[in-house]
Structures are given as structure tokens and as C-alpha cells.
């Protein structure tokens, strides 16, 4: 059940160039989320009507806090990044379907693939998997070394490999190339594959793991209602493009080979 509630900014820190860690306290954080779910935030500006969707990077149900990680890209995130501690935000969530994890057992292996601002929800995913005893391998793509965030946080959960476009850290090149070079047998090695990131990354994962029985990608699209009522955020079923699914509601997580990216 998604709810609309007022959450309060508990702290907010810039953790990389243009990347902010936002910690919100309030009732929505009393319940755990399915990793991959997102929240839809009303930006505190009268002129901005549409809520902004952000993946949930961490929920601490004891502290009743929720952490989001976001990049400043436009007007809404600029205003959000300037909101002081104590600001009250209207938050709608948790929304969407999230990544299935119930099928995994302790000791099984999961490959978590992310790029840029697709990475935040993968942190809650990795936390929940590790809590179940699943062994996680992270594989993250960034433009350049300085853009990397949450490195130690992820490394604390499992081995973490990086690819950077300019080669300034880890493998040089995009995630697809790193997959081919160092994780060529991932299709069979991992019990589950989870991905979130830019379109190119999702296509690379969708492509390589189309046949994997347990591989998931998370999509982004411009949204209005966030709850499936307005048909803003549709994507077509690959097996039958006459059927459209709503990313906000049926997604944002889909199985590989399920939808047309």
C-alpha cells in the first residue's frame, strides 16, 4: 500500500559532484520497502506541479528514516538540494513493484549491475540480499572516478567492480564491455541478476540475460500520477506490443526480455 505522508529532512549531504544523500524521517519509513520501489516527492516550489520519482536507497524502520541518493539535473532537484534540514516534504510511496528477492536462498549468488543514478535503489536491494545471506557482486558504471558515490557502503556488502568511461577508475569502457571481459559466464554463475541505470546499460543487460530465469531491470520514464492512472509512463510488452504496461505501477522493475526498452 502506498501512502502520502509528510517526511522531514533529517540531513542532506553532497557526497559527490552534484550527487546528494537525503535522509528523510517519517511514517512511510516505518515499513520496509521492496527494493527497487520508489517514492514520488513534491518539490517545495509552487510553480513545479509534478512530483519527482526517486528510488529508495535505504530504509531504516527502527530509526524511521529513508535515504535517497539523487543527482541535481534540473529545476526540481536543484531546489531539493537547497532545502534545509527540517523542511517537510510531501512524499508518496513506496510505489511500484520492486525487485523479487523471495526466491533467493542464503548462499546463492546475485549480480547487481548499476550505472550513475540508477545505483541508489540497488543499495537497499543489496542490503536486503545480504541480510538473507545471499552473496552479492556489484558491477557499477560511472562516467569518471570523481562521480563514484557510496563505494565503501557497497564494498561493505560485497565485492564491487567499477567501469568508467574514461578509465579513471576500474575497467575502461561501458558496463557491457566489462560484463563481456570479466563476467562472461554470469548467465550461469549467478542465481539472480538485477540492473538499474541508463538505457544503454539496461539494453546491454536485457540483451545478455534475456534467457536468465531470474534477471531484472528497472526502467525510468517521465511520470505524472505515479500510481497508474494517467498512462504517462507506458512501455510495450516485447511478446505483444499491443499490450502496454505502466512503469510506475507494473514496474519500474521488469524481467529481462519482458518489455521493449
Amino acid at each position, binding site marked *: 500500500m502506498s501512502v502520502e505522508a509528510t517526511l522531514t529532512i533529517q540531513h542532506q549531504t553532497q557526497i559527490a559532484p552534484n550527487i546528494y544523500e537525503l535522509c528523510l524521517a517519517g511514517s512511510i519509513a516505518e515499513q520496509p520497502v521492496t527494493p527497487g520501489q520508489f517514492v514520488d516527492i513534491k518539490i517545495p516550489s509552487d510553480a513545479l506541479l509534478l512530483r519527482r520519482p526517486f528510488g529508495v536507497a535505504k530504509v531504516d524502520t527502527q530509526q524511521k528514516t529513508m535515504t535517497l541518493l539523487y543527482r541535481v539535473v534540473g529545476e526540481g532537484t536543484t531546489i531539493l538540494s537547497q532545502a534545509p534540514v527540517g523542511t517537510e516534504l510531501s512524499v*508518496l510511496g513506496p510505489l511500484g513493484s520492486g525487485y523479487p528477492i523471495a526466491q533467493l536462498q542464503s548462499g546463492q549468488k546475485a549480480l547487481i549491475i548499476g550505472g550513475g543514478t540508477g545505483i541508489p535503489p540497488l543499495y537497499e536491494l543489496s542490503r536486503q540480499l545480504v541480510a538473507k545471506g545471499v552473496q552479492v557482486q556489484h558491477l557499477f558504471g560511472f562516467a569518471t572516478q570523481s562521480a563514484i558515490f557510496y563505494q565503501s557502503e557497497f564494498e561493505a556488502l560485497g565485492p564491487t567492480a567499477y567501469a568508467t568511461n574514461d578509465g579513471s577508475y576500474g575497467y575502461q569502457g561501458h558496463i557491457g564491455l566489462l560484463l563481456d571481459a570479466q563476467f562472461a559466464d554470469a548467465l550461469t554463475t549467478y542465481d539472480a541478476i538485477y540492473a538499474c541505470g541508463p538505457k544503454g546499460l539496461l539494453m546491454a543487460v536485457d540483451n545478455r540475460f534475456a534467457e536468465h530465469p531470474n534477471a531484472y531491470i528497472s526502467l525510468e520514464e517521465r511520470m*505524472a500520477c505515479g500510481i497508474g492512472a494517467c498512462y504517462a509512463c507506458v512501455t510495450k510488452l516485447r511478446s505483444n506490443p499491443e499490450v502496454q504496461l505502466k512503469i510506475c505501477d507494473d514496474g519500474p522493475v521488469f524481467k529481462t526480455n519482458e518489455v521493449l526498452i
Partner: protein
Amino acid sequence: MVDLAVNLPGLQLKNPIMPASGCFGFGQEYSQHYDLNQLGAVIIKAATKEPRLGNATPRVAETPSGMLNAIGLQNPGIEAIMAEKLPWLAQHYPELPIIANVAGNTLDDYVSVCQAISTAPNVHAIELNISCPNVAHGGLEFGTDPQSAAQLTAACVAVSQVPVYVKLSPNVTDIRPIAQAVEQAGAAGFSLINTLVGMRIDIRTGEPILANQTGGLSGPAIKPVAVRIIRQVRSISALPIIGMGGVQNATDALELLAAGANAIGVGTANFTDPFACPKMIEQLPIEMTKYGFADLSRFAVTQEVK
């Protein structure tokens, strides 16, 4: 006690607030958030003869105090709406009046959808959408020419079991001849306004943000245009008007009522706040008391507008 009831052709409303077409689906999603019985009525998403996939994405973009949409009338088609969507509403909210928004490519499309959908027991009125800016055919074409608008209206009125409200476009040089033609053709009322045509461009690419290039502008940005058009149509017609365009709160609703509307559609505000409609219904009596209105009857406006 403030009385919010409104009686319009086909519509006995306990209050004048109804979600606008396309901004509330077929009610299911918002029913997670609150009891839809609080609403005066619900205007459901456009129904067309065949299922429609709509336009490519991105379908929405934000603008200052507004938004653009180019959904393209995606809907499951009249058959599925009759078989699933309307029955779901009838089962969960048997008392809730539904207004069916009807769209199509051709006159025949419109006629067949009106005929079918007006037989649904919970459909109390039709909102004839001759003003959708986001589809290649039909839609806006019927809405910009008085004669085509009248022809379509007459044909739909003839086959409909319920009163037909015609939803007009603000994207015209003069709305009055169109409103007049539609009234003479037998419309029970008007729905005003549909969206203005707008565009946003992504500077990085130089390309429109919307895949459809243009989209319909809605939200508070267009409220002054809605007020003007409602008052213009009110000055030449006594027919009921469902007013909409940028209503975010009870004060906005009162402004559209003061312009000449008899009931209020709420679109974009549902996205900003999913509880916009019930909050407005709660706030309306408080605001009305503040301004000294005991009921909605004083909002009977007939002044002429240049």
C-alpha cells in the same frame, strides 16, 4: 450549514467536484487512497471504439505552474470499458455518478461509442471530447469548426440515453459560434476547457521533450484562460458548464464557479496531490462561509464579455 449539492441534467451531485477525464483513469488507482464516494462524480478517461495505444513516450513534460501531456487517448476501448472498468466502478461505488468521456476519429466512431456507453447503468452523462489536441484525427478537428461540431453533437445526442455535455477547445479564435452551434444541436451542457496546445524543447538536443512534439497544457497556468472562456460561454448560453482548468484548491473552484461554471473538473491537481479532490470538498464549505455563500446558487452569472 453550507449546501454543496448541484443538480444538472442527468447529474444529481452531492458536491460540484469531479476528477477530470484522463487524470483519474477509471477510478481504481485513486480508490487506494480514499473513498471515491466523497466525490460529486467521476469523469473517466476517454473511451474510443477500438483500444488505443496512444503516443510514444515521453508523454508528459513540466512547465511553469503547468504540464504538457500527449497521452494520445490511450484506453482499452469501449468493449473492455463496458465489460470491466464501468462494472468495477458500479460494484464498488454503486451510488457514484460517472461521466463518460467519448472520443473518436470519425462521426461514426463517436456515435457508436455514445450509443454503447450511455446504456451503462452508472453512466449518468457523456462528455463529448471534440477538443483533444493530441491525436492526428478527430478530436480537435471537430472542435474548431461550428458546423462539424454541431453535426457531431446532434448525431451523438440522437443515440445517447443520457445528456451529452460537449467539451470544447480553448485553441480557437472565437469559442462563441462553436458553443452556440453545439447548443442548437442539442447539447445538455458544456465542459470547459480542454488543454491549450504547447511545447517544451530540450535545449541539449534542440528537440521537443514530448515524442508527439506538442502536448496539451493544463494546470494553474491556464486558469485565467479557463475563467475567460467559461465567462464568454456563460454570456451567450444558459446551459450548465462543467468548468475546469487549473483548479488546485477550493478558492480556484469558487473562481471558476463565479465565472459561470456549475460544477468543477479537477485534472492536474490530482498528480500534485492525490488527495486534491477530497481536500477541496472539505475546504469548499469553509471557503464559502468565509465569503458568505450558503449554497452554490448565487453563482448564476450572465454578464457579457467582450
